Structures are given as structure tokens and as C-alpha cells.
């Protein structure tokens, strides 16, 4: 079973994402911000990270840059999942090493489509 780390400061979003991902047969772990996610990626790298952008302590883009620069992390696929929906944010995310990008609101079909494009399904 593939692991997915859901990084979002909203408990509601984490719960919605977890339900969809478990239906798609992922084992789900949660992190509440970028720093929490970085620690969790170090101890146990998931196959994919579903990553919010705006979070306290450390935001999604900072997490992504730090994680991609770390030699100690087996690099996961990263799918942004954020309300930021303008081209400049999308470009910045892809340049920093994101593999895909979801603009909230999302549903099961969008997650399924994006994950299968990344070869996860």
C-alpha cells in the first residue's frame, strides 16, 4: 500500500483528503504544517505528498524547497493542493520541484486524475 502524506493546517481538509485517498487505497499520514511535514518525511518518506501552500510555521513552498534540497529524503512525488490559483504560483511550485498542482476546491475525480498522471494509480 502506497503512503500519502497530507499536509494542511485545516483539519477539515485533511479529513476530506484522507477519505478520498483511503478509497484510492493509500495509507494516509497527516502533517499540520511544513515543519511537521519535513520531520515526518525524514523519518518515513511517503510515495506522495499532498501539499497545501499557506500554512503557519513553514509554508508549502518552503517545505518543498527544503525537502528537495535534502539528501536524506528519498524524493516523493509532490502534488500541491491549494487555493492559490494563479499562473505565477503554479509556475513557482513547478520550478521548485512540484510534480502536479491542484487548485482548490478539489474532489475525488481531480485527485484521481492528477495522481494517475503522476503514475501513482
Amino acid at each position, binding site marked *: 500500500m502506497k503512503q500519502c502524506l497530507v499536509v494542511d493546517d485545516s483539519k477539515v481538509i485533511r479529513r476530506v483528503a484522507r477519505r478520498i485517498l483511503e478509497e484510492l487505497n493509500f495509507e494516509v499520514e497527516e502533517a499540520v504544517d511544513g515543519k511537521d511535514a519535513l520531520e515526518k518525511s525524514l523519518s518515513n518518506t511517503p510515495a506522495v505528498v499532498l501539499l497545501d501552500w499557506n500554512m503557519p510555521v513553514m509554508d508549502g513552498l518552503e517545505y518543498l524547497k527544503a525537502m528537495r534540497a535534502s539528501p536524506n529524503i528519498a524524493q516523493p512525488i509532490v502534488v500541491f493542493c491549494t487555493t492559490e490559483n494563479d499562473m505565477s504560483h*503554479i509556475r513557482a511550485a*513547478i520550478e521548485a520541484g512540484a510534480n502536479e498542482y491542484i487548485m482548490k476546491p*478539489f474532489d475525488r475525480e*481531480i485527485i484521481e486524475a492528477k495522481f494517475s498522471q503522476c503514475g501513482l494509480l
Partner: protein
Amino acid sequence: MRTEDFDFLAKLLKQRSGLMLTQDKVYLLESRLTPIARERGLAGLDELISKLRSSRDEGLMNDVTEAMTTNESFFFRDNTPFDLFRDHVLPMLEKRRTNKKIRIWCAAASTGQEPYSLAMILKENWHKWQSWNIEIIATDISAQVLDKAKRGHYSQFEVQRGLPIQMLIKYFKQDGEVWKISDEIRRMVNYREFNLLDNFASLGQCDILFCRNVLIYFDQPTKSDVLGRMSQLLAADGALFLGSAETVLGITDKFRPVRSRRGLYVQSAAPDDLIT
């Protein structure tokens, strides 16, 4: 809905579009025709049906047919046909078409996602195709969906289902809530209003034919007829794509499936090794 009303609508749709309306689609009648009734100031579906019966209003019959034949569509729907198009069909034609001419017909283009997906695939390998004359003809029975296709404006929701983010970045421009497909992609597709029950002569020969998820709405004789005429239109070494739930088995002997290439068909008389 009363049986005679259902039968009346089913007959109307069959005559005008070939669409086979089955009882399990009653909910679609409600959800798609109620807005039309409202637009015309009618109380609901019942009044719409009596108006259709009494007036034989051509415009209204058209609106009803269009609303019922419109398909949900998304970019790179089902992925596989687009992979097959890029990795097997195009390479075959690249070798065989020494005149560097390829004509592609999308027979149920709906709101444009399918022809635009093909155009983007070609654009991704533009160094190879730019010296070629590749024509994408995209038709649909509905003028309304073709208007949307021609504009090439999509919602955030529409650009997220199937479209890889790299392609969104490359081929779309954002304008507020709207994502607009770039002119270079838009110009690669020629849209035409066309009913599959009509004569194909005006379309001219084509090399690749996409006719996905349309035949499922037709009855057996209509399917055989459409596929038979498509076989005449398609080049002897052409390729036909049908929807993943569709088949030619028991419907026509003009086409045969390509082994282990789901949804891809060639003319029955084509050489065995045409597409591997």
C-alpha cells in the same frame, strides 16, 4: 413521466440524432430539459412536452436534441487513446504518408477537449510535425457546444480533469476565473456543425477518426450504418478510435480491433502489422 410522453421524446430524439433514449435516462430528461422549459417561460417538463407536440417548433426541437446529446468531456479523457495516438498511430502515419499530410476527424468533439488534446500532443513534438500539413476537423451535432469549443474558454474545474499541469502552463492563459486555450492550439482545429446521420461526403477522406462514446447512444442498425460509412471515409491504412466501452463485434465487419490496443481499430482489410 407518463409513458406516452417518454415515448414521444424518445422518438423525437431518435429521428433527429439517432440517440436511443432508454428508461434509465429519465433523470437526464428532467435535469437537462427543465432549464430549457424555464428559458422559454414554460412551467416545467410537462408543458415543454405539450408545446413540442402542439407546435413542432423547430428551434425548440433543436434545443431539446442538443441538450440530450451533449456529452461530458475532459482533456485527455481515459489517457490510453491519446497515448496510442502519439506512440502508435502517428509513428505509423509518419512512415507511410510521404506527402506529409494527415487529416484527423473528431466526430463528436463536444466542447473541444478531445481535438485540443490531440493538437497539444502534436505541439509537444512540433519539431517533427511543423513541416507537415495536419488538419484536425472537429464536428458535433450541437452548435451550442461548438461555440464553447471554438472560444476555448474553460473553468478551473474543467482544466483540472485530465490536463497535466505542464500543459496548462504551456498552452493556457488565465483571465480571472477563465482559462483560455492559446491561439496556436485553437487555430489547429477546424470546427463544423455536423450530424452523424447525414452524408459524410462533405468531410473528405481522413486518416484518423475519433468517435468515442457516441455510438453507445445509437441502436444496432444505426451503429452499423455509421461505422460502415466511416469505413468508406477512412483511409485503407487509417485508424479508428472508439470509446473503451464500445465494440464493433456483431455490429460491423468493416473494422477489427488492434490486438492489446484497447479502443483502437483498423479496417478489416488492413495488413496485420499495420499497427503493432
